[in-house]
C-alpha cells in the first residue's frame, strides 16, 4: 500500500536518511523503531511532503507521491499525525476536528466520522468546546489522532504517540490505534521510541539507525531478536 524505495532526504547539508526502503501492507500496523535522531520523523516528513525527497521514490496505492505537496498527499488518503501533536491550541476541540475534514465536502460523512471519533475518544466528547491548548498531553494526542481520522484516510502515520504521556493514557491510545486498524481497516505506520509497545501492537517492524534500515522482520521475531532486545528493549 505504502512503499519507500531508497529514499534519501535531509536538512540543508545534513543527510538524515540514506536510502531508506520500506513497505507497509494494506490493513496492517507496521512500526518504525529507532533511537533519538535515527531519522524516524524525517522518514514520515519525507512521505507526507513536508520535506523534499532528494533521491528515491514514495509510492502509495500504486501512485507515485514523491515530492508532491503536502495538501496533495493528504488528498490521496495518507494522513500524518506529527511529532509533538501540533494541534491548533487556540481553536476548540470541535474546530480542530473540523480542520481535519478541511478537504471534505460531504457534510453527512463528516458528521458521522465526527461521531465515530467522539465515540472512540469519549474524553474528547466531554471537552468539545474546550480550547485545545488546555487539554492534557494525552488528550491532545487523542485529538491529533481524531483530527487525522476526520480526513477519512486510508493510511495513518503516527509519530511517537506515546511521547510525554502518562503510561495509563498511552495504553488507552494504543488500544484505540489497534481498534481503528481493525474496525476501519486502516493501515498504520507507527513511529515509536517505545519499541516494546510498538512491537506489541504491530505485525511488522523496521529498525532504523542513523538514517538506514538496520533490520526488518515480523514484530514477534524482532521482539526476540537479541540485537533488538539489547538496543531497544532494554533487556
Amino acid at each position: 500500500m505504502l512503499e519507500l524505495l531508497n529514499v534519501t532526504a535531509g536538512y540543508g547539508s545534513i543527510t538524515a536518511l540514506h536510502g531508506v526502503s520500506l513497505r507497509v501492507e494494506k490493513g496492517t500496523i507496521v512500526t518504525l523503531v529507532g533511537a533519538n535522531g535515527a531519522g524516524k520523523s524525517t522518514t514520515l516528513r519525507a512521505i507526507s511532503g513536508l520535506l523534499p525527497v532528494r533521491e528515491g521514490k514514495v509510492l502509495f496505492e500504486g501512485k507515485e507521491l514523491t515530492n508532491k505537496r503536502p495538501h496533495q498527499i493528504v488528498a490521496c488518503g495518507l494522513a500524518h499525525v506529527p511529532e509533538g501533536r501540533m494541534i491548533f491550541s487556540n481553536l476548540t476541540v470541535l474546530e480542530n476536528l473540523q480542520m481535519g475534514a478541511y478537504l471534505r465536502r460531504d457534510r453527512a460523512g463528516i458528521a458521522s466520522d465526527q461521531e465515530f471519533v467522539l465515540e472512540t475518544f469519549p474524553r474528547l466528547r466531554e471537552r468539545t468546546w474546550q480550547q485545545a491548548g488546555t487539554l492534557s498531553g494525552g488528550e491532545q494526542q487523542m485529538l491529533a489522532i481524531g483530527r487525522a481520522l476526520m480526513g477519512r484516510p486510508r493510511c495513518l502515520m503516527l509519530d511517537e504517540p506515546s511521547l510525554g504521556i502518562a503510561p495509563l493514557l498511552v495504553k488507552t491510545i494504543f488500544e484505540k490505534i489497534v481498534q481503528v486498524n481493525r474496525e476501519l481497516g486502516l493501515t498504520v505506520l507507527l513511529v515509536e521510541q517505545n519499541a516494546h509497545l510498538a512491537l506489541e501492537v504491530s505485525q511488522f517492524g523496521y529498525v532504523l539507525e542513523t538514517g538506514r534500515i538496520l533490520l526488518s522482520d515480523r514484530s514477534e521475531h524482532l521482539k526476540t531478536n537479541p540485537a533488538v532486545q539489547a538496543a531497544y528493549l532494554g533487556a
Partner: protein
Amino acid sequence: MNELLQQLINGLSLGAVYALIALGYTMVYGVLRFINFAHGDVFMVGAFTGMYFGRWLKPLAAAWPEWLFASTVLLVSMLSCAILGIVLERLAYKPLRERPRLTVLITAIGVSLLLEYAGQLVFGAAPRGFPSLITSSSISGIEGLHASNIQVIVLVVTALLLWGLHLVVMRTRLGLAMRALSLNPTAARLMGVNTNVVISFTFGIGSALAAAGAIFYASLYQAIDPFMGVLPGMKAFVAAVLGGIGSLPGAMVGGLILGVVETLVVGYSQLLGIPPGYRDAVAFVILILILLFKPSGLFGKTMREKV
C-alpha cells in the same frame, strides 16, 4: 465640545485609512511572520490607479449616478492592487520562503524602494490632483460641526469592508485555512491546506484593502504622489503593532486610535504645547511606548503551547 467632536470625526476618517492599511500588514504577518514593508507602496499604487482610471472613466460615466462611478473606481483600484500584491508575493517573496526572515524583510524594503522610484518614473515626482469621485458637501447638523460627506462615506464604507472581511475570515474555507495557517503552518499543511493559495489570497485581500484606504485617503486630501505611501504605511504598521501584530480586530482598533490621537495632538497642539509639525512623530512615540510597555499590543496574545 463640538470642537472635540469635530476632531473625532477627522481622526476617525484618517484612522479608517490607517486601519485598512494595517490589516494588510497584520494578515501577511499572520500567515508568513514577516512585515511586508512594501505594503505602503501598494497603497500608493492604489491611489494612482484610482486617479488614472477615474480620469479615464469620468467622461464615459457622465450619465452615471455618482455612487456608481465612485464605487467602480474603488473596485477597479482594489482589484488592480490585489493582483499587484499577488504578483509581488510570487515574484519577490515566494522564492525566499525557506530563507531566514531577515532576507525576506530586506527584500521587502527593496520592493518598496522599487515601487517608489518606478512610481516616480511613471507617474512623475510632482504631487497630482486626485479627481473628485463624490461631490463634496458639508453635512452640518449641529452648529460649528462640519463633517464632509466624504468623511462620512469613508467611515461607512470602511465599516462595510471590515464587516465583509470578518465574514470572509470567519465563514469561508479560505478564511479558515488562513487562520489555521497562522496558528500552525505545519499542521495546516497536514490538514490539506494549500499554502500557496492561502498566501496569495492573503496578499490579495490585504492589498485590496490598502487600495480602498488609498482611494479614501486621496479623496480626503486630494493630492497624491509616489512617496505618499511612506508615512501612512509606517503609521499603519505602528497601528498594527499597537493592536497586536497578527490580530485583525487589533489592526482595526489600532488604526482608529492612531488616527484619533494624531488628529487630537494636532488639533490641540497649542493646548498641549506640541507644535503641529510634530504630528508625524506621534505615531512613533506610540510605537516606542508599546514596544517598551506592551510589545504584544492591545489584542496580542502571548500564545503558549503545551509540548
